[in-house]
């Protein structure tokens, strides 16, 4: 995040590239229309969630005739187990994943960025290689392994791999950042007899808060939204995450309770939207510099 692209994002464009007045009116009109089109489905869903049940399909308008939160009440306990449980499960898995990713990936990234050891370049190349491999290739043996360990139907298969830095993408992200931290700092500390661990803990981590935050936020969002992992490993409704709960709700009530479904759908988006509102800059810089997929 210290490289040229981010600063280029922030740099104001020069006059020569500015548009004339009529041209900029056209551009703004088009952009506003596009914005409305992009947001319309989302706004419609939120508005449908607070509409009286009989009004949901009767109108394409965004403004409900009256505000009514009964859909939320109905949706919350629309399944045998309430959505409170699903939210709690998702939260636990997401927070543990964030912890695992930040800890394990920063340890590996520090080794790759700063420490000298035999085979470093080899392992670094291997690590980059793992980024290219689709997870489908390891899926089935991993499932068999976790089944034999008795971990299926627990959160362990979803969480433990993160403490082994299985999301290697974040290692790459952190290595890029660590390399931008002036080497003089840790060299001076090393002269003073600091151990590698102390340098990591007292110098690297405190200076890397932006990249640690980016990694934390993205791993939270991706875990919160993850559907495939929970689908495979969690079978009891007790253990369901919010995404599985929502899917069960769709299947059980596909035509009967759209209001409740939209209410719960809206609720699942709230945490992600919150991160978006408050950490937009971090997210956008993260994407601009590394080309993350979402």
């Amino acid at each position, binding site marked *: 995040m210290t490289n040229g692209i981010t600063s280029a994002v922030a740099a104001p464009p020069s006059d020569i590239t500015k548009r004339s007045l009529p041209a900029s009116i056209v551009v703004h009109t088009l952009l506003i229309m596009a914005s409305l089109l992009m947001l319309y489905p989302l706004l419609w869903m939120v508005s449908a969630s607070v509409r009286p049940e009989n009004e949901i399909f009767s109108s394409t308008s965004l403004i409900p005739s009256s505000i009514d939160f009964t859909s939320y009440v109905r949706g919350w306990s629309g399944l045998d187990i309430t959505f409170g449980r699903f939210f709690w499960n998702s939260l636990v898995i997401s927070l543990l994943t964030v912890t695992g990713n930040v800890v394990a990936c920063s340890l590996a990234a520090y080794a790759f960025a700063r420490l000298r050891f035999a085979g470093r370049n080899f392992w670094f190349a291997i690590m980059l290689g793992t980024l*290219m491999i689709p997870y489908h290739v390891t899926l089935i043996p991993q499932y068999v392994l976790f089944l034999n360990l008795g971990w299926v139907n627990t959160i362990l298969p979803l969480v433990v791999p993160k403490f082994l830095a299985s999301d290697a993408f974040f290692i790459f992200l952190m290595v890029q950042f660590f390399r931008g931290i002036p080497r003089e700092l840790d060299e001076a500390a090393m002269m003073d007899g600091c151990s590698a661990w102390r340098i990591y803990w007292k110098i690297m981590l405190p200076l890397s808060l932006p990249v640690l935050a980016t990694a934390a936020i993205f791993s939270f969002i991706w875990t919160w939204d993850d559907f495939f992992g929970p689908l495979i490993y969690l079978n009891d409704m007790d253990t369901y995450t919010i995404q599985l709960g929502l899917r069960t709700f769709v299947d059980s009530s596909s035509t009967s309770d759209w209001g409740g479904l939209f209410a719960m759908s809206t609720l699942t988006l709230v945490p*992600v939207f919150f991160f*978006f509102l408050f950490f937009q800059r971090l997210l956008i810089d993260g994407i601009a510099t590394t080309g993350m997929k979402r």
Partner: protein
Amino acid sequence: MRATADRAATAEQYQGVVADSRWRRLLAANGPGYLFLLPWLLGFLGLTLGPALVSLYLSFTDFDMIRSPEWVGAANYVRITTADPKFAAAMKVTLTYVVLSVPFKLIFALLVAMALNKGVRGLTFYRAVFYLPSLLGGSVAIAVLWRQLFAGDGLVNAALSHIGIQGPSWISHPSYSIYTLVALSVWQFGSPMIIFLAGLRQIPTDMYEAASLDGASKFRQFYKITLPLLTPVIFFNAVVQTIDAFKAFTPAFIISGGSGGPINSTLFYTLYLYQEAFGNFRMGYASALAWILVLIIAVFTAFSFLSSRYWVHYDD
């Protein structure tokens, strides 16, 4: 005699000490590095390399999770490529999805990025609005929403009926269902747009100044300056988005209720793999499907990198 034995003993001891200190030095030089790397290394060996090798082995077996794997040679691969209509359907659906969603997504992303690049007022607002769908898009909630939008009595048809068009039930019509998924993907053009925006900002403005002094039209400037200088970013986005599109799963799963229907029209490759592995417990067959997916992605990536020599400009 005794003296020689003694000498031999000290020599041995001495050599022992040398070897010992060599070990110690080796450990001192490499120990910390490997210690920090340990979690990742364990994960790589135990959760990536090991499973990948096992999955390669399983792909040559019949394995149902109950009996132990039974070696069948290349039978799985032969059946997949010659006698599996569902595989053919899944390939067709996935390729259609890739070929339609990636170019449209990238074109939208580039157009919007160019509109935003020239010092538009409210840039941060627009950028946020266009980025939001791609941040939320991976969740089940959005797939649920999409399912309603394109249902027979959904929002799209309600809007169409205002202008007198009676739309079909898009998601349950085998000829249209895939296009609703393409639309969902294109709707999430936000993250390639941000990467394009960053790339556009890297192009020095004096190039445009010089070009307009020479009387080059806007179109010519786009064609001769913007496009060539942006090719590395276009290349990057295209590769990332294509690999991602091959791996798409959640929207098809939710919209079709896990079936890939109607008539396999939304049977994404990964959805078929999931059905084989966790619906029918044909783990050997599913492993072969996984390796074919790897092969497809590898061939595509290799082809992109080879072709990039002819159209991507890296001259700084």
